């Protein structure tokens, strides 16, 4: 998707819409940065096994609630050489508050190396069997918590990295699905009107009138119990999207109803374009901005909703990790007061990703309407 920079200016009027969209998009700096962030997040999710120094469920009973370590570049002068090091901890257990107080141990240095053998085997992208980690302490048993540890002594950084896999994938599938259904039915109803519209509208109303809570409870009872927690969660998001398309479909229908009487649509029809072509080429593109806006709003909602489902026993269950799960684990006084990193790190991940998705959507929306504004 690259455009010849030198020819762009003089031939603007004859460019295809795809090229115009891209040109316009690139002018939206925030959107471009966001695009890279989103790509980055997906790369992290795809290569979580390499990037996370520890497996998601790996705990170290000696270091609950350990604060984040700082990585220093130094040479301890004991023959290990110049490089990156983290300090060990000194722990003190307070008998009154039952709190562990950690301080940095100046005498204990653990060397951090790149592409180090960790002893935890995994299959990279499901193919290559290895135990190399992007960066990890040379001594596999050394404490290494760059973003702190949780109550069970699990590395928060690793958990956030693994959490991206679920938070940035499964939720999106549900969003996509309801998007497809919503647009198809909405466009059909709006374009054909008459009996088809009548039927689709009644179906929509039936779906809208289903109360969600009892439906979820029914689903909770109906799903086969020998499915794994991930399959159940996936099934639930799919089922939710099967009833979640209604409002989008209504909006699309309303837009199509107004657009179908626009002059350019009428003109296309009079030119003999097929109905399908009219909808696809002339009506739907005008809806893109609206659709993108609703999708970007749906994504963060989905990330947060994954834990809301847990109260019905339908949400993500351990040992699965997602950002929603991590956020839920940090929702208590002890974490907020004594281990704020439990809250801050996953929140930051959610905030950054959703902001990036929102800006990306924003940029796409502006760009998606290349003929709408004046091209300067």
């Amino acid at each position, binding site marked *: 998707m690259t455009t010849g920079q030198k020819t762009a200016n003089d031939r603007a009027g004859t460019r295809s819409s795809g090229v115009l969209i891209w040109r316009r998009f690139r002018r939206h700096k925030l959107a471009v940065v966001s695009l890279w962030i989103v790509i980055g997040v997906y790369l992290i999710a795809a290569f979580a096994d390499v990037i996370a120094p520890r497996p998601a469920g790996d705990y170290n009973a000696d270091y609950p609630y350990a604060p984040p370590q700082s990585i220093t570049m130094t040479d301890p002068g004991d023959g290990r050489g110049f490089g990156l090091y983290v300090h060990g901890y000194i722990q003190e257990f307070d008998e*009154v508050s039952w709190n562990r107080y950690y301080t940095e141990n100046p005498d204990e240095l653990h060397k951090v190396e790149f592409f180090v053998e960790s002893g935890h085997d995994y299959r990279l992208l499901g193919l290559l069997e290895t135990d190399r980690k992007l960066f990890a302490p040379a001594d596999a048993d050394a404490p290494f918590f760059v973003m702190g540890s949780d109550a069970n002594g699990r590395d928060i950084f690793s958990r956030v990295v693994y959490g991206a896999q679920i938070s940035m994938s499964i939720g999106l599938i549900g969003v996509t699905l309801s998007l497809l259904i919503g647009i198809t039915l909405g466009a059909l109803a709006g374009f054909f009107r008459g009996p088809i519209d009548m039927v689709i509208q009644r179906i929509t109303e039936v779906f809208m009138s289903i109360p969600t809570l009892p439906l979820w409870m029914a689903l909770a009872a109906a799903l086969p119990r020998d499915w794994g927690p991930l399959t159940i969660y996936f099934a639930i998001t799919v089922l939710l999207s099967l009833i979640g398309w209604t409002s989008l479909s209504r909006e699309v229908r309303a837009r199509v109803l107004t657009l179908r009487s626009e002059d350019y649509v009428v003109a296309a029809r009079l030119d003999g374009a097929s109905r399908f072509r009219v909808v696809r080429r002339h009506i739907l593109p005008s809806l893109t901005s609206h659709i993108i806006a609703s999708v970007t709003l749906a994504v963060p909602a989905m990330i947060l909703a994954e834990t809301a489902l847990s109260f019905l026993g339908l949400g993500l269950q351990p040992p699965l990790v997602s950002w929603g799960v991590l956020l839920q684990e940090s929702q208590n006084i002890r974490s907020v007061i004594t281990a704020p990193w439990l809250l801050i790190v996953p929140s930051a991940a959610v905030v950054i990703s959703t902001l990036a998705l929102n800006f990306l959507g924003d940029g796409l929306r502006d760009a998606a309407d290349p003929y709408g504004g004046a091209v300067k």
Partner: protein
Amino acid sequence: MRHIARTTAGLALGALALTSCGSGEPGPPEAAGPDQSQRLVDTGMETGAPVLSEDRTAPSGQAPDLEDLEEAGEILPLEDRLPEAAVTILGADGVGQYGGEMQMAMNGNDDDSLIRRYAAYEPMVRWDGDWSSDITPGVARDWEISEDASTFTFHLEEGIRWSDGEPFTADDIVFGYEDVLMNETLTPGPVEYLMDPGGNWPEVTAIDDYTVELDFEEPHGLFLMQLARAEEDGKFHRFPRHYLEQFHTDYNDSADDLAEEDEYEDWADMFTSKGWVTLGTGFDSRWMNPELPQINAYIIETPAYEGTRVTAVRNPYYWKVDEEGNQLPYIDRLVFDVYDSAEVIAFRAAAGNISYQDRHFDHDFRPLLAESMEEYDFSLVDVTSTDMNTLLFNFNHIHPDEVMREVFTDVNFKAGLSHALDREEMIELIYFGQGEPSQAAPREGSPFRHEKLANQYIEFDTELANEHLDRVLPETNNSGNRLGPDGQPFSFAVDVATDRSVEHARALELAQGYWEQVGITMEINTMDRDLRNERRDAGEFDVYVRDGSAGLQDAILRPHWYMPHGDSGAYAWSWGSYYLDGEEAGEAPPEDSLAWDQWELYDRILVTADQNEQAELMEALLDVSAEAFWTIGLSTSPNRAGVVANGLRNAPHELYEASAYQNPGPAYPAVWWWEDPEERIADDEDDAQQYVEDYEGEDLPEDS
């Protein structure tokens, strides 16, 4: 009929201790002197809580505000208000001074039990501050029990007056019993504490003004303890006849008209609302109806539901004094602020705004409290909960699936899983290294402590675990997962509630790892508490986890973790319901079930008068519990933290916690006093509620 006087109770208790230490305690026989045995019967903690004096004292002093009232002629003079020789309470910090206010925090608008615990623990007979088996006098100064425990004669404290000055007599008790509790309109259901094991009502007679006799058809061995536990509110001595008669149709023909005037449905609604439980809110009428006379240390000043604060002031007719004859209570006013979450209460306590409170503080609040106690001048109260276990795995013994049931009822299966748990590590990680590994058993300090039950299958030993499991599920598949009797990979799911059980969820994640090591797959099903209970009631679960209660004196009153009893013990709730409520409520266990043996023993406990024999039977019952091994336990519950302001004297800094115990009621809050009463005035109601505003934006998790 031979009567055992109350004073012989001590001897009986000594004997009981000797027999109960026969099991597991290898101590030398000469160590079992009278002191030693007393310690074993006791819960083992000397809390330093105030105690009842052997002596009585003539009233001689009163609070300044009552002096004013007396001078104005609004109340009787001191010597006429109180008994000549009044009940005397001794506090460790001695005689105090009048004045000041105590501030507490209620969790939600329906937390009337908190008020009751501070202001109204006035049962017929009381637990003492150390929660020993030795029941102490309350409203009844003395009592006799027939040898077969079917006749109880209570001699009431003479000279007690209701808070309006009318005398309290045996007549009030007969009224409360016959006209309220036995009245089918007012009390449609049974009153369990009052009925004998056969479910029969006793015959209650007033022998004279100060003597009441209860005749049960069958022996009621646990009746005294049931009177002391006072957790239900249907105690028969709380209904002032002279005031309530006007609302009762048997005494006032126009009671129904009166009800109509006051816009009640009928006289029964009016009576209940005025004197027992306020209809609509379910709140105890003693804290809603200022006209209702009481015999408690404090009476209501600002009723509940009028705002965000409930206050109670001293009862001018309270019938207890200190060792110098000063009328109690010392502290002028109890102030209860209503908050809607435990978190806000914790912040309130951390800012030094709670005078004494031992409830509503989870372990998670401990660092917050500990770190602010120096700055805000309070200390932590060490609360030993009756909860005997942090986490019990209740395997469904009546699982609808035959394969599951067969495996779950096999002791080897549970023993194997138990050995596979690294409890030390779990305690270290989840419970801050506090508590000891333990199965579901009465905890240290209970007279019913049973070493075998507490410590069987407890050590972490993967080999031993595999050995046990091999006897049940010997086959494994390629990935090392054990196969069930049906040849399928065996796995089960654990239901855990999401609210307030963060610790449980974390413990399960660890258990999941340990059990994987021995080839057992466990799935964790977190869900809402209500849904979980629904599944439990329907019997549609594999394993249900929760913490274990009733681990001290109350083990004998509520044995549901040691044998199927009622619907609380989820491992076989249907059997428990069958035992308590008959065929309609639940299903009978198979004939070879150990439950039958246990029920036979418990039936005998219920009709046994002698505490000594009760303890022997209980031990036999727990022997069977050990054999059945109903549940897998994790560890003893760590003590919880309460808060006590540093200027508050006579208030215990250690105490026991149980709903059957009504803490801190047994520690006589009436005898607590302030070093600096003029400083101890509650903050403004609006300021107090400002806390809610301050923390509202934080979206703190809800507590339920």
